[in-house]
């Protein structure tokens, strides 16, 4: 039974892929049909995925990663003396991802129908293509989670990168009045290139891994002896292979999960359609980095107390805090969420850094649900405001998304939307509660578990030799981040939904269509109750991936409930909410200007400009690169071309001399002579051209006979 379904796991990425192919090749014209095909594709994947989830839940003992799992090998490529076997596998980590990925995808697919204005007069002109792209993306994500080796993982990883590029730049023809604002085209390019940096580093890591272990299949790589070998052989003094490879692979995660310093692409990725932001840049793709680290966790902990864990922990914690500070000063509703996504990912990374493997995955799942909810809610809000805008200004007739200087994403243009769009509003608020970790919403449990782990590490040294200092530092940063998270979330809520509408558009914003609101409601349910599966007392997640997991000999830690930490984090969160209310909620602001601007002053501008990271990169990385390229170009034009041309001229001169001296008299003479002889011979021979086939055959036969006789005489 379970065997049967496990062996079908390769179907998971195949369903959306088929949908993609069908839509692109045939049904591109028919919008409704394309929609349904995409839905069916992901729906089948969802059903199969959850069947696999429950089956593997039923017998998780023999399916716990890293070294267990049900392999479904496909084929193997001979590489020199080794066989590079590729295939899929089912283990509980995969199963957990399958709890999240296909379901959220399905929700977002359904949502997209409304968001892309299906059936209205301003339906998106590239509607079908959008569904094709997201189907391909779903294929990538599912393939990533079910692949059993680094190669297929990388392949699907890159497929997702491609889809992200295509989807961010989906409205590639869009342009804004102010030149400084980034257009979707540029955003897509930026995202692609930035993640590419991480991918290259990761590829290097994978190649090193292959060269060291001779295999890339998870179960083999994470086996005792391989890890031991990696931990005890040294790349160069003081740096075991394990550490080096772990760091390189982490580079990939940094790129994909947009951790500091490669975080710059994610906020700009918000230029894409909101379902994409929800799907790729909140729920699934960005969490792929975390999944990667979780998946290759054994390598990270192969060397106890190694450099790599500290790096992971530091980057995670720092990103969490850093991003949340930026989020405070953003006015674009989606950018706020983007930065909060970055910081939440920071949470997960930091959790992995302190060895809280289970907590990280737990938070990954819950976060996927409520962040997708939040993004789709914001999308619904934007949608409503846009419609209101059209309604006010030029009726419903306008179809292009770039109209003048009015920005439907700007929270300053909103306000009082809770009355206008209640379903969206309430679900958004639920998501916000989950995000800020208010009891008993999902976020509370996962975030609290992370904090508890960190604290636990601070008190009696973390597992895998995470030093107390690091652990405390991590805990501190994360707690601060929690505070800020609550603050900017509250700010967002109050700015968007509370008070009075600040613009005509907001006044006339309609509630979105059911196909958009129903997914919100369903996700809200999950955001509320999912956490109950991970309560410290009955932690299904720990049962699934923690209990039986033996990472280099030792069991994974199980952070027990810590009332103090829970209290602290809850208090901090409530404080954040309160502050948000104090500033934005108490007296609803009337003119679109942030009250924080005056008191904070330069700090505010610093935050508003994201610490000038883009500018810094522009100045210190991109411009130098370009100028270096210019220098190379000049060198090329001057020196290299000069040499080439010199050679060329010499060759021309030589050849002309040769022609005069040798070619004309001798060679041509010979050629002509041959031609003349041939002509004469032809004149002579044509007598034999009787055109009568039988003569020819006769000649052939006679020849054969003669040759035969010759042969006989010889022998």
């Amino acid at each position, binding site marked *: 039974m379970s065997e049967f379904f496990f062996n079908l796991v390769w179907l998971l990425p195949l369903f959306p892929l088929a949908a993609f192919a069908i839509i692109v090749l045939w049904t591109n014209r028919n919008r409704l049909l394309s929609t349904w095909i995409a839905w069916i594709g992901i729906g089948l994947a969802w059903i199969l995925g959850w069947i696999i989830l429950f089956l593997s839940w039923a017998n998780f003992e023999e399916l716990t990663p890293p070294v267990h799992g049900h392999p479904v090998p496909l084929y193997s490529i001979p590489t020199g003396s080794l066989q590079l076997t590729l295939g899929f596998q089912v283990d509980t980590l995969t199963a957990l991802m399958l709890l999240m990925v296909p379901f959220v995808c399905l929700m977002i697919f359904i949502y997209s129908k409304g968001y892309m204005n299906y059936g209205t007069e301003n339906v998106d002109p590239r509607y079908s293509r959008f569904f094709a792209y997201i189907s391909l993306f779903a294929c990538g994500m599912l393939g990533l989670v079910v692949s059993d080796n680094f190669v297929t993982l990388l392949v699907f990883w890159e497929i997702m990168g491609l889809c992200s590029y295509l989807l961010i730049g989906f409205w590639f023809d869009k342009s804004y009045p102010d030149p400084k604002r980034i257009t979707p085209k540029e955003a897509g390019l930026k995202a692609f290139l930035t993640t590419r940096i991480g991918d290259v580093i990761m590829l290097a890591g994978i190649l090193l891994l292959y060269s060291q272990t001779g295999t890339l299949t998870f179960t083999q790589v994470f086996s005792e002896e391989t890890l031991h070998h990696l931990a005890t052989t040294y790349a160069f003094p003081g740096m075991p292979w394990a550490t080096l490879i772990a760091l390189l692979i982490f580079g990939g995660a940094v790129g994909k999960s947009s951790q500091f310093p490669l975080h710059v692409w994610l906020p700009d990725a918000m230029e894409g359609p909101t379902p994409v932001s929800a799907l790729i840049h909140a729920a699934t793709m960005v969490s792929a980095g975390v999944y990667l680290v979780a998946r290759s966790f054994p390598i990270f902990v192969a060397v106890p107390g190694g450099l790599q864990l500290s790096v992971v922990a530091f980057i995670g914690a720092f990103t969490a805090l850093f991003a949340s500070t930026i989020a405070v000063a953003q006015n674009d509703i989606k950018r706020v969420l983007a930065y909060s996504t970055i910081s939440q990912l920071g949470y997960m990374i930091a959790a992995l850094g302190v060895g809280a493997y289970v907590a990280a995955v737990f938070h990954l799942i819950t976060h996927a649900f409520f962040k997708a909810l939040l993004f789709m809610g914001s999308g619904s809000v934007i949608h409503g405001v846009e419609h209101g805008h059209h309604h006010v200004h030029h009726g419903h007739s306008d179809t292009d998304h770039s109209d003048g200087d009015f920005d439907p994403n700007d929270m300053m243009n909103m306000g009082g939307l809770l009355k206008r769009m209640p379903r969206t509003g309430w679900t958004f608020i639920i998501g916000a509660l989950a995000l800020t970790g208010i009891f008993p919403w999902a976020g509370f449990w996962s975030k609290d578990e992370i904090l508890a782990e960190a604290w636990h590490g601070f008190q009696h040294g973390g597992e895998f030799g995470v030093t107390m200092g690091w652990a405390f530092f991590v805990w501190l940063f994360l707690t601060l981040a929690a505070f800020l998270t609550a603050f900017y979330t509250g700010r967002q809520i109050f700015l968007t939904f509370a008070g009075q509408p600040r613009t005509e558009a907001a006044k006339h914003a309609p509630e979105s269509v059911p196909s958009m609101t129903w997914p919100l409601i369903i996700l809200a349910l999950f955001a509320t109750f999912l956490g109950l599966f991970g309560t410290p007392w009955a932690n299904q997640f720990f049962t699934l991936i923690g209990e039986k997991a033996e990472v280099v000999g030792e069991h994974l830690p199980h952070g027990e409930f810590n009332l103090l930490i829970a209290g602290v984090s809850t208090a901090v969160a409530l404080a954040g909410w309160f502050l948000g209310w104090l500033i934005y909620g108490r007296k609803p602001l009337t003119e679109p200007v942030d009250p924080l601007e005056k008191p904070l002053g330069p700090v505010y501008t610093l935050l508003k400009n994201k610490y000038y990271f883009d500018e810094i990169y522009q100045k210190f990385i991109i411009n130098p690169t370009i100028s270096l390229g210019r220098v190379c170009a000049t060198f090329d034009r001057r020196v290299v071309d000069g040499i080439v041309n010199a050679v060329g001229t010499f060759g021309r001169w030589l050849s002309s001399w040769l022609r005069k001296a040798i070619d004309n008299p001798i060679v041509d003479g010979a050629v002509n002579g041959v031609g003349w002889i041939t002509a004469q011979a032809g004149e002579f021979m044509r007598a034999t051209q009787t055109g009568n086939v*039988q*003569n020819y055959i*006769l000649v052939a*036969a*006679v020849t*054969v*006979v003669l040759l*035969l*006789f010759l042969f*006989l005489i010889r022998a």
Partner: protein
Amino acid sequence: MSIPQVTVSHVVFVILSAIALIGALGVVTTRNLFRAALFLVLSFIGVAGFYILLEAEFLAMVQILVYVGAIAILIIFAIMLSQRLMAPGYKASNEQWLWALVAAVALFAALAFILLNVGWPTAEASVPQGTVAELGKALVDPDQYLLVFEVASVLLLAALVGAVVIARER
């Protein structure tokens, strides 16, 4: 070479070869093309007899079916279509027939010389039973002759289409 002691098969062989060769000679010598075709049939039947003597009954039947039943009939058909050419005083063979004769005889001499001077093995091994079934299996067995079989089918199809296209009235 030593003449082996005579058995029925030897007698049959001699008779068959007589039939085949007489038929062949008739084919190339008769002026009347229609009769030549009939001689051809005779020769074919003789060859089929050889096949039976060689314990390849299936091929013998195919020989009769294809050559006698199809090819010979086709030839006769063609002869009937172009019958005017057998007006009296029509020369059957062209100017080079003498050369052709010389070449053919010389070739035969050479071949016969070679064949008689090679020590051929004489097989006493008996053909396994159920060769026909084996043959049928082998022809559609991917490991054996499936490809050949398919190629032959494609060839036949192409020939069919080609023949129709060429011979069709325009």
